[in-house]
């Protein structure tokens, strides 16, 4: 048996379990979703009725809820990406210095990330209502008395804040890893050339951090587009429909309104939108990276 053939066989054999699993939990349900989006089905009846593109037509003609929730998701994504990356980078720079207790502080930032989103949501729901109320009685600071989850505008910021708070640790870790990979000799050379701390950071460290940044930006993009559990636990989409994200709108359509067909159609449309956005961002970032290499 040739060595190449053997290697080939090995790689096929080893990937079979993974391929099988991905097919079962992802590709097959995805194809089924496409089929259901072409049917009228309430999720309960035993036989879905095939109706062609009708669901997509309804989607365009009447579903204002979907457009609003897409708008919410985009606003959430933009704010989340900016805050998560800027804050994580700032904290990472501080925590990549060596001082006493640095590892304790690092793990403190990471703990929220290993907690379940739902639990984080409930904890913050408690803080926003009872916690803030108790603090207000003691301090009389006006912002503690605002209805953080009960008014549409504030609820948006509450949701973004909790989302960022929860996942910050993850991005910090990625940035710290990137910062530690920045070669010290380059920084020393910059110092000898007379660059100050500020200049060193923006002219040397930041460009060398590009690979970490690309990963972080991409992860924060996909994570925030998929936002669901934290909203469900914090506001259930409320007050009114102020914090319905696209994924929650799909859930509401399919499971609460019993329109599994329309829900699937929304999911497919959302998938296409996410695919386009991520491809676009990926292209842009690849170009950046290449440009960086050629410089």
């Amino acid at each position: 048996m040739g060595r190449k053939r053997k290697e080939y066989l090995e790689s096929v054999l080893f990937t079979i379990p993974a391929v099988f699993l991905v097919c079962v939990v992802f590709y097959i349900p995805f194809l089924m979703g496409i089929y259901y989006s072409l049917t009228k089905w309430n999720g309960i009846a035993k036989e879905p009725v095939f109706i062609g593109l009708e669901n997509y037509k309804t989607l365009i003609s009447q579903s204002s809820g979907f457009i609003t929730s897409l708008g919410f998701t985009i606003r959430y994504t933009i704010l989340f990406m900016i805050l998560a990356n800027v804050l994580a980078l700032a904290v990472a720079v501080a925590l990549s210095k060596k001082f006493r207790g640095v590892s304790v502080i690092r793990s403190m930032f990471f703990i929220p990330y290993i907690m379940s989103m739902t639990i984080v949501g409930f904890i913050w729901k408690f803080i926003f209502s009872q916690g803030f109320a108790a603090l207000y009685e003691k301090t009389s600071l006006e912002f503690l008395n605002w209805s953080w989850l009960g008014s549409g505008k504030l609820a948006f910021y509450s949701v973004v804040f909790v989302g960022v708070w929860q996942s910050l640790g993850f991005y910090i870790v990625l940035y710290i890893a990137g910062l530690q990979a920045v070669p010290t000799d380059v920084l020393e050379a910059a110092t000898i050339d007379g660059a100050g701390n500020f200049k060193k950071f923006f002219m040397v460290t930041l460009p060398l951090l590009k690979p970490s940044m690309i990963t972080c930006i991409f992860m924060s993009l996909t994570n925030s587009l998929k936002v669901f559990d934290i909203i469900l636990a914090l506001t259930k989409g409320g007050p009114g429909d102020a914090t319905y994200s696209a994924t929650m709108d799909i859930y509401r359509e399919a499971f609460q309104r019993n329109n599994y067909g329309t829900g699937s159609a929304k999911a497919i449309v959302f998938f296409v939108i996410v695919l386009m956005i991520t491809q676009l961002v990926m292209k842009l970032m690849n170009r950046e990276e290449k440009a960086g290499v050629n410089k």
Partner: protein
Amino acid sequence: MKKKLLATLLCAALTVSMLTGCGGGNAGGEDDPAPAQEQSQPETDEETPADTAQDATGDEEEVELYMFISGPEYADAINELLAEYKNVKPNVTVNYETTQNDYPTMLKAKLNAGECPDIFASTAGKEIETYKEYSYDLTGQPVQEALLPAIQASMADASGNGCYAFHYVGDQYGMIFNQDCLDAAGVTSLPKTLDELEECCEKLQAAGIQPFACGWAEWWVFKQSLIPFLTESVDNYATFVSDMESGADSLNNYEMMKDDMFRFVDIVKANCESKPLESDLASMQAQLATGKAAMGLGMGPWAEGSLLAINPDMNINYGGYPVGDDPAQCHIAVGATQALRVNKDSEHLQEVLDFINWWFTSDFGREWLSVTVGGVPSIDTNGVYTNKMVQISMENVAENGAGNVGTTYSSDAFWQSFGESFQSYVEGSASKEDTIAKIEKDWKEIDGAQ
């Protein structure tokens, strides 16, 4: 060669473990940890069944029935019932599981996974048709004959035939008062018109008591407290709903809907806690039971247990919602919203039917339905009620007549959207006109399209 063999073996082991993992997942579905899963304890055989065909003996085949229903507030009572049934039929174990959150979604997941529970729940009225394919027609069974006629009627399918569900506790919509607060403020009678309600709020405010705990973070509070403004406006509520679904009627045609309903919401908003949209059921009940607030919305006799658990000395009073100027229209609404169904393809259909028939015809079962469960009874109990609110409501209904529960003519999906529309109104991001337009649109799009 050895290496290749090892690779193949490893690969096979991985695949097999994964497959068994999947298989285990399916088989273990029933054991999923759920918010409150309880199992009746096996006990010894003491009594013979009152109505079941066969006698229970220890040698009979072990049977497990799976009951997945909503309404965790009745979990204690149901566990008592199941413990007794274990005495009657030691070979039958009823696995009882209940949840408050998102029951319909969990049920749908189970149905689509091919694990239809032997006994499951929906709402009565409009939803009877939705789950008809899975439901056993109880016509002719002793349980059907035991149900009050009005309840039997609400369990029929869209064409008015059959009896596809039963229920063990009725529903009521009314306003709960903390009588001690009213006494302290010098309010002598429950408000029956909106003017009286305003007056009552002023007196309470003057006495330093917060008039309302609103619970407006919950969408269903709007459904259960505003429905009287809809049902009391029209003579035939069923026709009104179908006209709304087809877009032939409008809320603007009825003064009580377009003005009084919003006036009521405004009165509550002006007289409730400072963050109304963060007030949920638990906080509403706590404020009401401890006397921080005098009136609570959207609840019925089912809440009595929770209120008394917070404050056993709470002096509860109960009345209809003031819907306008006419005190004669202030009714407590009485009817059936819960519907329990029997899976018609159940492996142990006969055992399930035996259980339900025992539940509704045995002495223990009838006592349970009229006393233990402490709600609005679904069978004729000859006027015996233990629940204070049920007692008050029965007297109230005898005197003033009952209102129509009405909510079951529309789906919960519609009501959720209805609640969300009013949340936006309360928040101030939608005007009264926007709210009316949104409700009319939802009625057409959510329920009209089904």
